[in-house]
């Protein structure tokens, strides 16, 4: 009934990925950096599901599950790093955390 062309879904995934990449490059607040990372991971998952739909295989959705688990692990560690950064230098600006020795 609904026939979504795979090319357009991949195009949407590309647009979302580029938006997330722009967010990582432009924003300097570490919370927004993590949000942009989530956007990029989500667009990659969208691409996997779209390709799995295109070929009629369950592998795309399985990769989506793995991306989900990886995103959960990544965001827990990343937010712990945010808390540690805020405890040490009392800011969320990643440019302030440019010293190699903390």
């Amino acid at each position: 009934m609904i026939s979504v062309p795979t090319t357009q879904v991949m195009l949407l995934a590309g647009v979302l990925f580029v938006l997330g990449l722009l967010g990582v490059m432009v924003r300097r607040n570490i919370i927004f950096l993590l949000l942009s990372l989530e956007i990029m991971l989500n667009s990659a998952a969208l691409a996997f599901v779209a390709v799995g739909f295109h070929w009629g295989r369950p592998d795309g959705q399985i990769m989506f599950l793995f991306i989900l688990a990886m995103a959960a692990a990544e965001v827990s560690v990343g937010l712990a790093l945010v808390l540690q950064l805020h405890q040490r230098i009392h800011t969320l600006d990643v440019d302030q955390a440019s010293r190699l020795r903390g």
Partner: protein
Amino acid sequence: MNLLFYITAGVAVIATLRVVTHSNAVHALLYLIVSLLAVALIFFLLGAPFAAALEIIIYAGAIMVLFVFVIMMLNPGGQSIGGRTPLRRPGTWLGPALLAVILLAELTVVLAVGGVTAPSREQVGTIALGQTLFGPYVLGVELASVLLMAGLVGAYHLARPEETSTDEGGKP
């Protein structure tokens, strides 16, 4: 029926653009939740309702709750909570609410036209998904469990307060 996909894609792109360009972290989080809901609706349109449910439960539920916890602990931006309630000003919630209402209308249309089951041809059922996940990909499941365990231990280690990390002897 391709129009549904285009509307959803537009909502996703607009919401994501607002996430990247917003200045307030909590408002950006609201827009990100709308973006995740839009992607979940695209999964549903693609015949993957299980992936759509997981997207909402884990991404828009669990991971966003983690972000809300951290933002509430840190309170960035210096805006004071309290005083005037932000709900009185519709500018804070009107944008995400409108986008979410659009998504809800689309979901209503999909369910009314295609029934409760998957709207498009569900090529890959949940049964086939589970059989493949615990068949050829069972090593990946084990690796994901190890990764989640490492994430748990790492988050616990990194989020400890400062004074307990000094007497352990290791460089933090």
